[in-house]
Every structure is written in structure tokens, then in C-alpha cells.
């Protein structure tokens, strides 16, 4: 326990408190609601940055800022145990920053019942922050669900086209995924004999006495498919584009950017370290399904003509790389995956936000009905081009994504050399759809439909209130891209202290020596 652990607690509590305040200050007018909710998003960013500055990993079990409360479930070994390690910290900071951008954007939206919308978004934000700061596996799951429920509500109530169908499909898919992973977590808890859901205690118990092969196999299988559904592993991905297509933009930003990383984070932080033999049993499955994500969904993405659907599919596709990286179980690959998760979270959030801004100007998501927007809105087009380049992983604005993908490619090459060709083919595919989207939306002649729209709505460039949230995301992307060490040192240290990943490292470096 150290003095700063209360900062972690505050960063979860502040959005929750702000959420309830928005309901109460509603009668004081719209401005009060906006101020309270923006404060609820901004304060955690400040706290997270402080924590980042204060972080040093020398505490017990590699976790810093540890605190523990008994909530009354001690009979099954559950306690609210919070803390951050090197893997959790970057995602924690990313979650608060994406949350701030989404919150700023939502606060100025024209949503009906704005206070309720912001209430949902703030509860979701509290859940997201909680996910990445939980050491207790049960609360890790609990906070995920806390963030998930408002997503369904936001899609169902404030969503766009097909919102009812999308919300229901997403609810059923994600409940299935969550239930499978819950049973997987219960399996680990019961079979480990640790009598605790505390991840540190579980690791200690399983290092002392690993689970038998058959238990590892089925427990990892449950977690793989449970988490896989939540991360839109092919072929369980169909909820994602549909859901993101219908979701209001701030909800899509937070879900695609942050919440979807929950499953990967769970695999990296919990499933692989606790069940290493399970991974080797399932690794071929992971690789082939992930190739489905990269290649099949890549081609599907190319065929999309709807901007938001395309972004939804592209985020599904990028998850494939991370799955392959998990299968390699190497510090390089998994570290790359974590870096990519951070960078991708920022990028996809930016793109979802920009696509809604485009929609305000063109009144459509159909790319065929746009065109030539860069003349009318040069700043918007500059932002969008940056975001799209980053999503493709081109060095430049997407330097952070680039480092992540590069490490994953190297790890993939060391793991199975032929994999790297498939992964690179994925980059080509994303370059094709990304550049085609840029050209269809911003360049070329204006389509007839767009001209019609312009007669009624004067097309303006990005206003400052739109630029601020976009800038927050873009500056963070640049910062991580140019100074990746600020993030990767912590990730590397944390991964190297994990015997599973470190063992692979020694093996592969000795392997490399043999080649010399």
C-alpha cells in the first residue's frame, strides 16, 4: 500500500460521482451538465498522468499503487484490489485520454436528454478505468460489464440506423462471450486452489503448482473464445461493424477504442501467464482464426462503401495482429500488441469521431455520395488523412501503430516465418481501403448528392470545439510515436518479469544465436 494508491481509486470514483451529479444538476441547465461531465472526464486524465509520472514497478508482484477493500464476497475470495503494472498503465492512461476526447465530443452533441447520455458515458468511463486497474480478476470482469451495459443502452436509445437490431445482436453476442470468459475465470479460481480471485495470489499458486494439461486446455479454450467474441475474433465478429455502425459516435469511440481491448488485455495479463500449456494447445486455432481476421475481414473491409461500417470492419481486422502476437508468447510480440492496442485505441477513436463530423457535413455515411470535401474543409481532411495513415500503420502520424506492428511482424517471423507474409498482405489491404476512403471522401469531384446537400447546409470546416478533442487524440498519438520508450519500458519490464513471456525470450535469443 502506498500513498498514491488513492489516486487510482479517485480516477474510478470521479466519473461515477460526476455521472450521478449530471442527473442532479440537470435543472441548472445544459451548461452545468456539460461542465460537470467534462470535469468527470478531465480529472481522471490528470490523475492518470500523475500516476504515469510516479510509476515505479518495484512493488510486490510488479504492481504499484496497490489497495484492497473487502466488499463482502470474501467467501469466494473476491476483494476489490486495485493497482497498476506495466501492461495496465499505458492502457489505463489511454482509456482516460480517449474518454476525455469522447466526453468533450459528447458534451457538445445535440443528443436528446443530454444528461442521461452523459450519465451513460461517464458510467462507461468509470468501468473502463476500473478494468485496467483491477488486480482482482473478478472485478476485472465486473468493471467490464459495468462499461458494457451503458454501451447497449446508448446504442439502443441514441443510436442511428438499425439501432434496435444492432443493440440486441451486440447484447446477445457479448453476453455469450462474457459468460464463457466468466466460467473460464471461475475454472481458474476453483482449480488453482488459491481460494482467491486476486491475480497475484493466483499467479503464485499456479507457479508453485501449475494446473494439469486438461484443465489448462479447457480453461484456456473458454477464455480464448469468451474473450475472442468480445474482441471480435473471426468468425464471431459480426456484432462489431453492425454495432459500431449504429452506435452514437462517443459510444463507438469508447467501445472500439478502449473496451474492446479488454479481451486482449485479459488474454495477455491473465490467460497466457496462468495457462501457458493451454496456449500451446490452442495456438494453431488462434493463428488460423486471426488470419481470418486479417485476410478475410481485410477483403470485406475493402468492399465496404459505408464509411462507419468500413471503420468498424477495419478495427475488427486489426485485432488479428494482436491475436497472432499473443500466440507467439514472446516479449517482443506481446509488447508490440500492447503498444498497438494503445495506438489503435487512439486512432480508431479519432476516426470514429471524424466520421461523425463528416456525416454532419455530408448528411451521409455513403462514400459514393461524398467527394471533394477537402476544398470545403481542409482541416478536417488533414485530420482524417493523419488518422487513416495511422490506422494503416504508415510511419509518420501512425508511428506508434507502426512500432507496434513492426514488433508484431518480427515476433511473427520468429514464430512461423510464413506468417509475416500474411501479415504484410494485411497492411497492403488496409492501405488500399484506407487510401480509397481518403480519395472518395475528400478528393476528386463532388458527387451530385453532396452538391444537393450543400444547397441546404453550408459546409464549414472543423470548429474549435471539434478540433480540441481531435487534437487531444492526435497529439497523444504523435507523442507515443516519437517517444515510444515512455510506454515500452514499462511494458517490457512487466513482460520480462512474467516467466511465460521471458522464457520464450531466452529461447528465441538462443535460437538466434544458433543461426549465427
Amino acid at each position, binding site marked *: 500500500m502506498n500513498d498514491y494508491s488513492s489516486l487510482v481509486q479517485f480516477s474510478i470514483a470521479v466519473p461515477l460521482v460526476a455521472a450521478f451529479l449530471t442527473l442532479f444538476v440537470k435543472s441548472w441547465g445544459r451548461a452545468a451538465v456539460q461542465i460537470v461531465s467534462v470535469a468527470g472526464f478531465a480529472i481522471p486524465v490528470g490523475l492518470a498522468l500523475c500516476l504515469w509520472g510516479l510509476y515505479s514497478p518495484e512493488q510486490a508482484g510488479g504492481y504499484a499503487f496497490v489497495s484492497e477493500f473487502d*466488499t463482502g464476497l470474501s467467501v469466494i475470495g473476491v476483494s476489490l484490489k486495485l493497482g497498476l503494472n506495466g501492461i495496465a498503465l499505458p492502457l489505463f492512461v489511454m482509456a482516460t485520454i480517449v474518454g476525455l476526447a469522447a466526453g468533450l465530443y459528447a458534451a457538445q452533441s445535440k443528443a*436528446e436528454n443530454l444528461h442521461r447520455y452523459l450519465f451513460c458515458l461517464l458510467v462507461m468511463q468509470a468501468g473502463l478505468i476500473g478494468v485496467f486497474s483491477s488486480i482482482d480478476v473478478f472485478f476485472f470482469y465486473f468493471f467490464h460489464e459495468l462499461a458494457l451495459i451503458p454501451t447497449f443502452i446508448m446504442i439502443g436509445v441514441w443510436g442511428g440506423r438499425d439501432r434496435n437490431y444492432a443493440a440486441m445482436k451486440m447484447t446477445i453476442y457479448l453476453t455469450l462471450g462474457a459468460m464463457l470468459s466468466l466460467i473460464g475465470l471461475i475454472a481458474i479460481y476453483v482449480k488453482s486452489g488459491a481460494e482467491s480471485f486476486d491475480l497475484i495470489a493466483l499467479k503464485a499458486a499456479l507457479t508453485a503448482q501449475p494446473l494439469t494439461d486438461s484443465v489448462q486446455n479447457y480453461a484456456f479454450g473458454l477464455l480464448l473464445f469468451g474473450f475472442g467474441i468480445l474482441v471480435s475474433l473471426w468468425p464471431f465478429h459480426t456484432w462489431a461493424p453492425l454495432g459500431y455502425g449504429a452506435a452514437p459516435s462517443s459510444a463507438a469511440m469508447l467501445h472500439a477504442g478502449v473496451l474492446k481491448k479488454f479481451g486482449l488485455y485479459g488474454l495477455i495479463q491473465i490467460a497466457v501467464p496462468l495457462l501457458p500449456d493451454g496456449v500451446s494447445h490452442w495456438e494453431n486455432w488462434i493463428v488460423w482464426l486471426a488470419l481470418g481476421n486479417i485476410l478475410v475481414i481485410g477483403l470485406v473491409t475493402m468492399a465496404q462503401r459505408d464509411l462507419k461500417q468500413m471503420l468498424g470492419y477495419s478495427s475488427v481486422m486489426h485485432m488479428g495482429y494482436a491475436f497472432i502476437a499473443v500466440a507467439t508468447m514472446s516479449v517482443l510480440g506481446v509488447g508490440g500488441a500492447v503498444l498497438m492496442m494503445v495506438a489503435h485505441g487512439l486512432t480508431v477513436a479519432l476516426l470514429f469521431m471524424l466520421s461523425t463530423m463528416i456525416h454532419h457535413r455530408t448528411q451521409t455515411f455513403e462514400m459514393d455520395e461524398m467527394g471533394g470535401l477537402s476544398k470545403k474543409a481542409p482541416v478536417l481532411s488533414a485530420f482524417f488523412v493523419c488518422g487513416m495513415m495511422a490506422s494503416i500503420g504508415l510511419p509518420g502520424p501512425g508511428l506508434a501503430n507502426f512500432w507496434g506492428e513492426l514488433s508484431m511482424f518480427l515476433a511473427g517471423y520468429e514464430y512461423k516465418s510464413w506468417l509475416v507474409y500474411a501479415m504484410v498482405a494485411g497492411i497492403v489491404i488496409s492501405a488500399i481501403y484506407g487510401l480509397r476512403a481518403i480519395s472518395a471522401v475528400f478528393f476528386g469531384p463532388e458527387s451530385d448528392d453532396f452538391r444537393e446537400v450543400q444547397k441546404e447546409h453550408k459546409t464549414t470546416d472543423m470548429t474549435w470545439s471539434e478540433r480540441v478533442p481531435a487534437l487531444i487524440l492526435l497529439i497523444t498519438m504523435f507523442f507515443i510515436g516519437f517517444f515510444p520508450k515512455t510506454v515500452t519500458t514499462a511494458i517490457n519490464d512487466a513482460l520480462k518479469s512474467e516467466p511465460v513471456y521471458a522464457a520464450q525470450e531466452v529461447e528465441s535469443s538462443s535460437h538466434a544465436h544458433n543461426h549465427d
Partner: protein
Amino acid sequence: MSTELLQQIADTNQWGAVYPELILGLLALALLVLEIVLPKFAHGLIPRIAIVGQLCLLGYLLIFDRTGCCEGEAFGGMMSFSGTGQAFRIFFLAASSFVSYLAMVSLEKKDMPRVEYFHILLVITASLMLLAQSAHFVMLFVALETATIGFYILVSYFRTNALSLEAGLKYLIMGALSSSILLFGIVLLYGAASNPALVGHSSDPLNFANLNVFLAANSADSMVLIGMLLVISGIAFKIGAFPFQIWVPDVYQGAPIPTTALLAVASKGAGFAMLLNLVVVFEPLKDWLYPLLTVLAGLTILFGNFGALTQRNIKRVIGMSGVSHAGFLLIGVIAAQSVGWANNAIIFYLFAYMLASMAVFAVLAHMPQENDAELTLDDLGDLAKRNGFLGLALAVGIGSLAGIPPLAGFIGKLLIFVAAFKAELYGLLAVGIVGVVVSIYYYFGVIKSAFFEAWSFDEDEEGEKAAPGESLQFLGRVTILIAVAGTILLGFYQSPLGDWLAGK
């Protein structure tokens, strides 16, 4: 019965130990007296007196007597007091307090005699409390029948309504059938256990402890096995478990809302109180009992959830969902044979289920529709817009029934699942997961009709003015708030029940 036995019973009477039941009985009588004594314009006070009386007793039990004042047997082995029994007392009393409020709201809409309803409700509650603590089949049957006869009246209480009468008739026939099955089972057990030719027979074979001794010595006797099967069948009817669930949708639909709530919560709780006592008695027959319960639990979950999918009437949806909850609770009962705290998990689940159901029923009771048997999902349309408070209460209640975190229902399901995993009931767990995922569909349907069709981005479409309807009194707000706040609080923070869950 021999005179010595009667003498023994008289010697071990502990009237003080059944003071909650006595107080409820006296309160029930007092209500009837008050109706005669009070002038006509003051009759509106009687339901309030009933509620206040129950709340005082509930408060006393919660504050001063949470774990039960007495332990062990009393009344010559007729009753046995324990912490679990005390928990069920509190459960029934809390349920009947909620139901009293619902009855107050529902009966005000109709021109119906009121006092009798509260009188019968209190008698039912007292007999359910006795039922949970009975340690003798005679006591069990008498208490059960007292409650069931009360239920016959309450189900058909709206006697001008055809659906209510139909429900009453169905409940009467099915209830009588189940009672006779139960009685037949008891008689078979009595016949076997009082046979002097068999080892372990006794002069008072219907006492649970004596019967347990007898069963341990004669676990393969076919008459005993059939008796056990029939007794379990009788209980399966009470909890609405497959294949005795067939009455549930019709009776739930036709009965007045407070009665439906009482059936859904208290009657189901009573079934589990009996079952928890009887699995101990039938322990020597576990090779037959647990496979039977396993099959029942699996089929109940599947039937309840798939049956609910096509329902449009809200009370039928709740009824079928209640069937599936019985299945989940049965998993807990089965797990309890190897996991010590599973009994307490069942009680936690029941409390969570009660709070969530009462929130939902309270919302339904406030709907403006005259005929509550014909409330469909469409009637919920725009509820959130008309009355945000009721909308929120419905969402929390349904969410908790669906087992969505961070609500109490989720913690209940979690405890049951962990217990089931520890007891290695993998098949039932798989069925449970299928059940949860399927259930999302119909719970989602309820939420959808209350919320999603209400608000939209279409700004040019002026929302119609809210239909006249749900108006909430102060008492209503407080009642619903208790159910909602309890549901949320138990989802986040279980300490109030946690120490007790851990068996401290």
C-alpha cells in the same frame, strides 16, 4: 399419537420462539376487528396499519434478532429453529411487506373489499414462516395447506374478472393435485418408516431426524424411493420446476398483481425452504435424489427460458423467467451437497430475486391499465418518457433478473455458478449459460419496449404528450426506491450479507 408424545410436545412448547408468527396472526385478526370497530371513512387506514405492523416486526427482526433467538428443536420435534430459518422468516416478511404495498395500489384501482386481502396475506406469511422451520411432515403439511388455501382465494380475488377466476380454478385444481401427491408421498414414507419389521423404525417416523435415521438404514426400499419422488414432485409444483410448471403462465397472468408477486417470490421461496430442509432428510437417498434434481434443474432452465421467448404478456414473461430462476436455484441446492456455503448463496439469490421482482411488479402496479391481466409489452411503450423514475426502476429490476452486473441478480448467479463449478456440475453449468444467453433476448425485449422506442434523434417528430397514467405517491416512491437501491447496493457491496454468507 400416544399420550406420552403429546405430553412431550406440551413440555417442549416454546411459544416465545414463534413470536413473529404469533404477532402476524394477531395482526391479521386485529385487521378484521378494526373493520368492525372503525367508522367507514377510516377504513382506508387498515391497509396502512397492516403495512406499519409488518414493517415494525421486520425492523425488530433485522435489528435485534437477525440470527434467531432460539436454536434446536421445539414443540416435541415439530419445529426446529436455525439461522437459515430466521433468514427465511425475514425473507417472507419482507416479501409480504412489499406485497401489501402492491395490494394497496392495485385494490385502490378496483372497487374491491380490501381488508380480507391483507388478512389472508398475513396468515399466508405466518404459515410460510412456520413452514420454513418445520421439522416434521405433519407440521410441514399443515403449514403448507394453510398457505395454499390462502393462495386459492388471493389468486381469484378479482372475482369480476374472468381471467382471475380462470387462474383461480387452475390453481385450485393443480394445487389440490400437488397437495395430494405430496400427501401420498408422506403417507408412503410413514408406512415404510413405522413398519416394525424394518431396521430404524420409530413411533414418530414423520419427524425429520427420525426419518433420516430410518432412511439411512433402508435406502434401497422401493416404497421409500417412491415416497421421496412424490414429495419432491409436490415441492416441484410449488417452485414451478419442470414438469410441474405448466400452471405458472396462466395463473401468473390471471392473478392480481400483488398475488402474482406473492406467488413468484414467497411461494417459490417457501418451496426452496422446504427443499433445503428435505435434502438433508433425504441425504441417504442421494444416489436417486441428486440425479433427479439435476434433470429437473436442467429442464427447468431450458423450459423457462425458451418458453419466455414467445410471450408478449408481461406477467407471463415474468412467470416463465421465474421458472428459469427456480432452475438456477436448484443448481444451488444440488451444489450444496458438497459446497458448504451454497445454502447461503441460495438465500442471497432469493433476496436478490425478491428485490428485483418487487421493483418490476411495483412498476406494473402503477400502470394505468384497468385490467392488469392484459398488460402486454406494447403497453410499456414510452414508459421511460412518461415517467423516468418508473422506467429506471423497471430497467434495474429486469437487469437484475437477467443477471447483469453490477446488480444483485448477477452476484446471486455468480455465487451459484462458483458453487456449481466447485461441485463439478459442468453439465448444469453449460445449460445455465445457454439459459442466461437466451434469457437476454426476452429481458431485452422488455427493456426495448420501455426505452428504445421512446427517444430518438428525429427532431421534427414532436413527441406526443405523455398519456395520463402513472402517478406516484410518496409511499410508492419510497417502496420502489428501496427495491431499486437494494438491488444496486447488493450488486456493489455485499458486506451486509457477506459475513452472514460466510457463515459467521
